[in-house]
């Protein structure tokens, strides 16, 4: 037997095999028990030819194994290729839930202010008139206190018209500094229409510490407005009036819909009013036992529905309370 001729013949047979079955037949022919090589190995007498033949056997075994892997791989690929289907069909759908848009806005506000070092306070929705009105410097004749504006449970228990009563409670309970935002439902005696709902959500912020300035209020609200409406937005402040702040200023953000060109949303002014703010009135500080000569503070209030309606173009506040899944699933 000529090992060289045998190897050449076997290698070309391996290469020629086109399926694992054919390859197996060739393996039996060249490496099987009755193959020429195996017989020669059994009959070998000298060490040198034994080594030659064993090396040949190993080479052939490697060649068979390599070819087999290649053939099996090709066979699998062909099988898988036949399984190809329309990948544009939808996937299996797990049940999908959605956060209410107001919850999403609420969380954004909370995260922005936690990032600035503010605590988040929930506060009760049923309040007494002292914490909601008197302590906030609203005199007994103030128009908000009228039962035409506020829902009373009895003479001195009301559904809160704003969340700031919780600011009073926090300040009463501890010494400054206080950095807090209160978020939640508030109630007004309003009829239900496109822009009004008797229940809505507010964020009100309060910072009281030594040396707080009107500039700190401006910087904080600029940060908030940019987080919500984009880093390019500007804010503007104009004079306003609230019993619990002095000076009082109204916050407006540059119109992110028309970029100042003028549109219906900004009433062709380029600015959108967002809410009231100002430096905490010294009477409010005194009412909670703080010394207005030692500490100063700022406060602001913005409606969450207003933010949501502006940013997402929601035209009607009632959509938030109708909870139609087709609406909820958009956000």
């Amino acid at each position, binding site marked *: 037997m000529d090992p060289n001729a045998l190897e050449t013949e076997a290698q070309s047979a391996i290469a020629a095999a086109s399926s694992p079955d054919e390859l197996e037949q060739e393996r039996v022919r060249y490496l099987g028990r009755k193959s020429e090589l195996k017989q020669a190995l059994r009959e070998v007498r000298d060490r040198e030819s034994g080594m030659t033949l064993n090396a040949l056997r190993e080479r052939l075994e490697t060649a068979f194994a390599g070819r087999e892997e290649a053939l099996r791989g090709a066979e699998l690929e062909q099988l898988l290729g036949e399984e190809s289907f329309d990948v544009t069909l939808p996937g299996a759908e797990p049940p999908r839930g959605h956060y209410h848009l107001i919850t999403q806005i609420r969380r954004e506000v909370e995260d922005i202010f936690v990032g600035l070092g503010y605590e988040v306070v929930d506060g009760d929705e*049923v309040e007494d008139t002292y914490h909601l009105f008197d302590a906030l410097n609203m005199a007994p004749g103030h128009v908000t206190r009228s039962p035409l504006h506020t829902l009373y449970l009895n003479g001195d228990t009301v559904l809160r018209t704003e969340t700031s009563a919780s600011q009073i409670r926090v300040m009463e309970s501890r010494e400054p500094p206080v950095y807090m935002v209160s978020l939640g439902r508030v109630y007004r005696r309003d009829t239900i229409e496109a822009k009004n709902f008797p229940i809505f959500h507010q964020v009100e912020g309060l910072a009281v510490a030594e040396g707080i300035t*009107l500039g700190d209020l401006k910087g904080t609200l600029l940060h908030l407005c940019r987080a919500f409406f984009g880093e390019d937005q500007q804010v503007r402040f104009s*004079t306003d009036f609230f019993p619990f702040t002095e*000076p009082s*200023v109204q916050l407006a953000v540059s119109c992110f819909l028309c970029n100042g060109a003028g549109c219906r949303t900004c009433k062709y002014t380029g600015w959108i009013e967002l809410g009231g703010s100002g430096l905490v009135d010294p009477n409010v500080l005194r009412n909670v036992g703080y010394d207005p000569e030692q500490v100063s503070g700022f406060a602001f209030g913005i409606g969450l529905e207003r933010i949501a309606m502006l940013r997402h173009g929601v035209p009607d506040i009632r959509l938030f309370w109708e909870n*139609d899944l087709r609406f909820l699933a958009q956000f």
Partner: protein
Amino acid sequence: MLPGGQKLEAAKLRGEVSEGMILSERELELGQDHSGILVLDDGPEPGTPLADVLPLADDVLDLEITPNRPDLLSVYGIAREVAVIYDADLAPPDVSGGQSPGPGRNGQVDVQVEDLEGCPRYIGRLFENVAIGPSPAWLKARLVAAGMRPISNIVDVTNYVMLGLGNPLHAFDTTKLDESRIVVRRARKGETIRTLDGETRKLEPTDLVIADASKPVALAGIMGSEDSEVDESTTTVLLEAANFEPLTILRSSERLGLRTEGSGRWEKGVDPYLAETAADLATRLILELTGASFAGETEVAAELPERPVVSFRPERANALIGLELADKEQRRILTGLGFDVTKDWNVIVPTWRARDVTREADVVEEVARFHLNEVPFTLPLRRTGARLTREQRLRRLVEEALVGAGCSEIYTTTLLPDDADPNALRLPTPLTSDQAVLRTTLLEGLVTTARSNLDVGNEHIRLFELARVFLPPADPRPEEHWRAGGIVQGGFGPAKGVVETLHEALKIEPSFERTQLPFLHPGKGAAFEAGWVGELHPERLEGEWGVFEVDLPALFARVPERLVYQDVITFPALRQDLAFSVPEGVSAAELVTAAREAAGPELHEMRPFDVYRGDQVGEGRKSIAFAVSFQSPERTLTDEDAARLREQIVSALAERFGAELRA
């Protein structure tokens, strides 16, 4: 185009093409005169734009005035602000020739003020030989631009002075006043007045009225009466320049639902010193425009309030504003606004700001508001670390678990027509009867919302709400509890799955037991530590719906503070299925509890996966199959261990429940 929006175009009129139209005052909204066409004085060339002849084309500023600034409800008040902004001088109102001739004439009008609190000042001026007629075009145009209708020279003058200076005035026809007298007093019970708008109004003793010798002739500060109105035949006029107390006017105006330009100013507080200037300006104009003669005057007044004096520190203003404004600039602003500032910064407040500016902080605002745009954007220097509270973080986790379980979040109203709890808090005067009660459960909102979604054809309805309920008694305030509630299409199983997912997310193991609640299917309700879950009673909503409500304080009380590692990997679990036949009334949960007691901690898990009823278990019995796994954190359990544990379970269940192990 006409003011009403009507377009004038060429049109055929009686067969002739008309290219234009000659207009009356009323068609131009310049006045009410529709008796003929408007004839312009001085005969301008045809084709001259009307705006060049009449002062029509002035720009009109629409300003929003805050309630603390009634002084700005006047052109002069605005001018004062503008003068400060532009550092310009402000001329005093031109009242030349209108001043009172002096005390010699005083007392010639019979004015009596019975209520000096409600009316701290009353100036009555008498004019004779008044020729009532239309106002000149300039006056009409200014009134129209300010949104008022020109009526007659006398009435227009009173309105013009109100708009110009901020002090509402009134004019009476003296001949229509009984005994030509004016008495300012509270209304008497049963009195009525027919106001200029034609309404007859019943008066209360809280209403302040201007009366003559016998009857009210005006609702003070709000509206005059038809009886005493100035009309075309009037020749003697009593001009009223008074001051009224704000709350009295506000109460009457609110009670009667009658708001006028006058009441809107009085209710905010008008400077009592202004009455005289207003009287003088009106006098000047009346003399000029009506040819009248000034026949006499009476003034009745309480002691007018002193100007407040505020001790002010310009450096304190800077510290609060966050700017370095020079003392000189602060002084300039205050002086320009009418404050007197002494050398050592005592600030004497002008009479028209005496209600609003009484403290240093108020003066700081006066300075700040002229420099708002320059205030820098800064953040507070001293800040503290902060994070959400445990309860807030857990509430977010609840939302995440429920959204993850495929539920969409809804917001429903806190105020409902009624509540299952008869002690639920009720609003004594709700806005509408369906917003009358503070809810004690989220159930109604869930059912209502599921129904509305069903009605519009939505599918796969799974909803939840996180909100507060209000638990009586109100002592003095109710207890407010956060709750999570849900409603899930498909009945009990899907809802219970959501509840279990929620507990798993919080690492709490709930235990369920059968319960009956009036709104649930009587056989499919379960209570657990923090709430209930069940199938909604089929009468409540069409279809099969699972509902649940979880009290969050109760749930959060069971959340572990810290999770401790348990080795469930090193030593593998031994798994087997065990099926027990038990009487129908025995629950799976009872079997699991008993098995845990019997086998101890090495019973790692015992989860029911199948319930079978039929011939093989016999009447009145059922078979429950459990997937059971045994595991120890210390060693690999052997088959002998498993056999021992299984035997402990089997004998305990047999003894307690008559359970028989099947195959």
